[in-house]
């Protein structure tokens, strides 16, 4: 439950020790990124891979000989290795919400900045309907690729995600944040949300999620345009504006930043080891992609 979230910090810290054998380390004079609240840039972002989507692409490409020899047509579509997440997600896979996004997309997510995404989604839709026998063959080929060409990184490499979340959750409970949340709640009264939560972090509320279709699943692989109503735009803009006017967005950002700086300093050596791993792995992924990728259409 939500109360359990504060356990994250302690567990994550212990896990970091287990992962690297280090408990402390100097910051080694590492430079912090430039603060950017609209993109929610954080000190730990640099330790979180921004290329996860390429791993599946690389493995699928490398599987083609195996799949073909088994009698399957396995035409992996070309993907742009520089394709972006779109404006709603930052490089560290954090979802963004600010007045600019609210004005255009409400609470929905903006489409990705990736022209190769539609072809991949169609490919994925086809793959999702494999029979169990086909699925088993696919996994057999995947195992072969992982053994010979591109093994997966261990799940523990995602520790910086947990550390970021621990910092965020602590920031939500910081005194300036809680005071600002009260102001936000007052600011939002005219919007008339029947189940307005006590913190912007819990928006959109369940009634709004239902009303705005945020719980729906898009079943059309070619339809990337979110359906945003004027009612959603109105509430979302009011919400984003109140987060600014109340000082809540700035309070959370600054508090999380401070905590991440401390985390970075306390675990610099360990995080540097993770950084080396993800940097090295990125090179391997790109090498596999370059060896197998089809020609750009």
């Amino acid at each position, binding site marked *: 439950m939500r109360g359990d979230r504060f356990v994250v910090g302690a567990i994550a810290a212990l896990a970091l020790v287990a992962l690297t054998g280090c408990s402390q380390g100097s910051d080694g004079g590492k430079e912090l990124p430039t603060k950017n609240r609209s993109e929610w840039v954080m000190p730990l972002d640099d330790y979180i891979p921004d290329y996860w989507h390429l791993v599946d692409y690389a493995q699928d490409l490398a599987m083609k000989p195996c799949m073909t020899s088994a009698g*399957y*047509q396995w035409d992996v579509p070309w993907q742009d290795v520089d394709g972006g997440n779109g404006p709603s997600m930052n490089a560290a896979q954090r979802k963004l919400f600010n007045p600019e996004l609210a004005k255009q997309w409400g609470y929905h997510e903006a489409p990705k900045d990736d022209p190769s995404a539609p072809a991949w989604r169609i490919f994925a839709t086809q793959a999702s309907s494999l029979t169990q026998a*086909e699925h088993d*063959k696919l*996994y*057999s080929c995947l195992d072969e690729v992982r053994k010979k060409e591109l093994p997966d990184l261990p*799940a523990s490499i995602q520790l910086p995600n947990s550390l970021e979340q621990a910092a965020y959750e602590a920031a939500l409970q910081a005194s300036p944040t809680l005071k600002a949340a009260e102001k936000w709640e007052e600011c939002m009264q005219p919007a008339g949300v029947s189940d307005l939560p006590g913190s912007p972090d819990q928006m959109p509320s369940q009634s709004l999620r239902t009303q705005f279709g*945020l719980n729906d699943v898009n079943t059309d692989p070619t339809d990337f345009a979110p359906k945003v109503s004027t009612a959603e735009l109105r509430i979302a803009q009011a919400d984003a504006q109140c987060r600014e006017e109340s000082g809540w967005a700035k309070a959370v950002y600054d508090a999380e930043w401070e905590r991440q700086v401390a985390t970075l300093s306390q675990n610099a050596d360990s995080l540097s080891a993770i950084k080396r791993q993800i940097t090295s792995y990125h090179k391997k992924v790109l090498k596999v992609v370059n060896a197998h990728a089809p020609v750009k259409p």
Partner: protein
Amino acid sequence: MVAFRTITATTLNSVGGMANGVVPRQTQKGDSVSIRNRFVLGAAAVLAVAGGTLVAAGPASAAPAYCPGGYACTWGDTNWATSGNSAANIKFTKYIPDYSGWVYAGTKTNGAETASSVFNNGNQDAAFFYKNPSKGGASFRLTRNTGDSNLHDSSGVPGGYQDTLSSGYFDTYN
């Protein structure tokens, strides 16, 4: 989570019985969308997936029972079960934007912030699981054919995610 619950074995996707009056619109394995004939079937026998119930897992897959090929699955307790029943899960082939609209198959237990084990048995992508609805909050990634039988500990996925998951997406939809 939490104490064990009373469970019966059916899959949510094939049944209904949603919490909070939300009607999930998750697609099922068969309800596709114009499949082009890219996958030329071999002559191998097709294992039955009927009514959301998987008969058997293939030799190449270490997936838990009742998490069929093509799906990512969550359970309310550790070791890929809910109150000892591995069929009592929640699964998706694309994404679930808010687990609060779902219950573990055959139960009344809401899926939001109750998962203690997860598995990605998907065909195409890694799966991402988030603490808040619609990709909000912290996330972790599970590659294909991997899972975490105990989100309470720090083996596998780093600790801190037990009883917190609120949405899940295959990377294609992430």
